[in-house]
């Protein structure tokens, strides 16, 4: 089963320098990600950037991930 810490590590690996916090029960997770990659991007692109760091796990092992995505200046 995925743990919040696993998801945090994957996002941090994919987005070096990002501030990431993840909570969850093994199926449903919530994450807040602050990353400079988000600057100037809309919500859709921001979520896609995070999903990309999780590879094929999103929608499979990770059933649901509520995302809050912020650029550092926000």
């Amino acid at each position, binding site marked *: 089963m995925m743990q919040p810490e696993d998801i945090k590590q994957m996002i941090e690996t994919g987005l070096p320098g990002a501030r990431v916090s993840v909570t969850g029960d093994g199926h449903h997770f919530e994450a807040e990600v602050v990353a400079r990659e988000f600057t100037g991007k809309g919500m*859709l692109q921001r979520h896609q950037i995070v999903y990309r760091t999780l590879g094929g796990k999103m929608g499979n092992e990770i059933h649901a991930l509520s995302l809050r995505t912020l650029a550092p200046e926000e």
Partner: protein
Amino acid sequence: MSIQDRIRQQLSSDKIVLYMKGTPQFPQCGFSAKATQMLGACGVKFTTYDILSDPEMRQGLKEYSNWPTFPQLYVNGELVGGCDIMTELYQKGELQKLVTQAQG
């Protein structure tokens, strides 16, 4: 017809399309339920497809939009996002504007 062609055809025939788990009457996931409730509250007509009854469509959509989860809302053929983005837009009053304008 390929699955990608089927998706394109569905998105060009209706302006507001929600791909979801289950149906608006019997949603199979809380996020899909919430998505239909928000669209319902906007007072617009929308088309839904149940991706649980069509595994090929489910996989095809993930690739079509580079978006791995459901629900997925499309307006005028463009992916708006999933439940989180819909909620954020709804709270700002922007979802209502977007779908009302699309309905014309």
